[in-house]
């Protein structure tokens, strides 16, 4: 019966299932985001006047964001599943960097198209939701 109660109570599992779901959805969405932003940068460089010293930073920041995102999702997922707060905390810190980069692509890019606005808004919303869930998970792990 205690085993049954534990299974029914879920009290030994501290990992957050919504957070894990969100990580999974985020990963898929980010792949789409990355490809879409890259394609749009290529489109802008053909259609508009996009000199090299504006194109360079935009592309570099996109690739940095991709690397950060991979790292972030890996650490977050790892920390959530092993119920460790350290990787989850690190993932939260990296999320701050990702948020800044997303704001860059939303506001400070050379050309901000309407599509850019849409996908970056969705990404920022996802980051926001993730951050809230991570904080709750860390609180659960610590206590």
């Amino acid at each position, binding site marked *: 019966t205690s085993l049954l109660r534990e299974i029914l109570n879920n009290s030994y599992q501290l990992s957050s299932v919504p957070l894990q779901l969100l990580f999974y959805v985020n990963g898929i969405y980010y792949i789409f985001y990355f490809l879409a932003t890259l394609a*749009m940068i290529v*489109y802008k460089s053909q259609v*508009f*006047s*996009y*000199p*090299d*010293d*504006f194109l360079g930073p935009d592309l570099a920041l996109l690739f940095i964001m991709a690397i950060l995102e991979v790292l972030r999702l890996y650490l977050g997922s790892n920390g959530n599943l092993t119920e460790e707060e350290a990787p989850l905390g690190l993932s939260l810190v990296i999320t701050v960097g990702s948020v800044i980069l997303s704001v860059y692509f939303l*506001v*400070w*890019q*050379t*050309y*901000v*198209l*309407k*599509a*850019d*606005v*849409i996908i970056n808004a969705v990404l920022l919303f996802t980051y926001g939701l993730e951050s809230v869930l991570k904080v709750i998970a860390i609180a659960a792990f610590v206590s």
Partner: protein
Amino acid sequence: PPETRAAASARPRSGPAPVTDVARLCVCDLLVAQCDVNCCCDPDCSAADFSLFTTCSVPIVTGDSRLCSQKAAIYSLDVKANPPERIFQLIDHVNPSVFCIHATNYKQALSFSSPEMPTAENFDQLLKEFGSASFSAEPDSWNMNTDAQNPSDANDTYRYEYGVPIQTVDAFLRLPSPVVSSWCSDANPAGFLVNQATKCIRSVSLEKCGNIEEVSMLFYINSSILAVNITVRSIVVQSLNGMRTLLNGSDVLRLPTILDELCVNIVLGVSYHITYTDAGEITEAAAAFVLGAINKEALSIQQSFEISFTQVNTKPVPLSGNPGYVVGLPLRAGFRPQGYPCPVEILFAALILNTNKYSQLTILQSTSNQDCLAAQGARTPILFGYNMISGCKLRITAAMKCQPLTQTLLDLLKGQSFPEYVASFGNSQAQDVLNWVPITHLHTSEQRIYNTFQSSCQIPVSLEIEVKWTKYGSLVNPQARIVNVTAMITTTTLKQLPSGRERTIPITSSVVFTDISSPAEPGYKAWPTINAKLPFDFFFPFV
């Protein structure tokens, strides 16, 4: 003028700022301060004009349509109203595409950039950036060339280019010239390095002697070319019968005055001589005057004006072609002075009034009074390509002696200084001996029967100069080159006349130019050869 110099050396300007307000932009407004037809955005049109339009040629003025939201000015005509009126609306135009530009952080993204205006400072850098087949994306350095010259120095003299009018303190240096008729017009500016010679007629009268300023010397030397004063080089006074004398002191300004019922010191000709440096600055200006006199019957005088330019530290050598002779230009000739290996050109000391034609190789000029002995030494220069013949009649009396007569006739035919060499090309330099052709002298006698006991007098009666020339250089642009010059003197026997009798013989001199360029020869291809070799194994079984 100083203000244009200052403006020219100002910092690089750009063009006018572009108009970006759609309410004010109107591309069909072409006429200034007038209403353009069917142009609904023209601010010069009134409501009455709009009622006459049929349609709006420009219905909408928008910015870049790729922006997500932008202002648009819509013009339309309401034909239902009476009278028709124009409707102007300012709306926000929304681009429905998802790829419309929401914002941009790159200022030059959506408009053409104004190109930089080239000035003396940034010209080199602009040339490096845009001067080759492809533009470099970014120049290496944007700093101005610090060791560039500073042209806006106020004390700097003005630099001229070819054809630019020469400026004086008030306007331009003027060379009066005939415009439509032969009357003088004072509005012809003298251009830098443009040699001009003009003749025109001016109306004068004895009563207005001192009042007409265009016939007084002061008018022509009063205007000083910027920073350089016009000096008087020489004054020649021409009397009523045409005799010219050179005055010794040329510093005195001679103004028209009335003297013995004549108005003297009237300017009949001015010859400006400007010296310039190779940077285009004028360093010296001199004027030579010919002053004359008019009597009370004179109603007009002919004035002649001339301007010539010399580079400082060089002696002007007029070319008769470059390199081949040009038809109509005088032949260049010279002589080899004793002890010099190279021919030296005869250069007349600059005549008081430059006559443009240089008397290097001349022939006798026929005068109206055909007497040889009274010919007064009038000679005409030999011009390339122009065959000439001239002559005079010689009256021989019994008292004339042979030897002086021979010498006189030789002087008459050949002139005072008959040259020894003629230039082969129009631009032959005096140092290149090979470019000069020696004049060959021939003597023939008119009498066919040669009398070995010739004790009688032989006097020259005819000089014939034959100039043989050929075409030299490319077929497309052949240059004339003199190959041979022969001066043939024909003499005749002077029989002794009984006293009291006279005889008249004609004396002729002529110049003939002969083209000895070889004609084109036809060229043929090589004759075709018959290739009649049989195959190797034609006689197979037997060979």
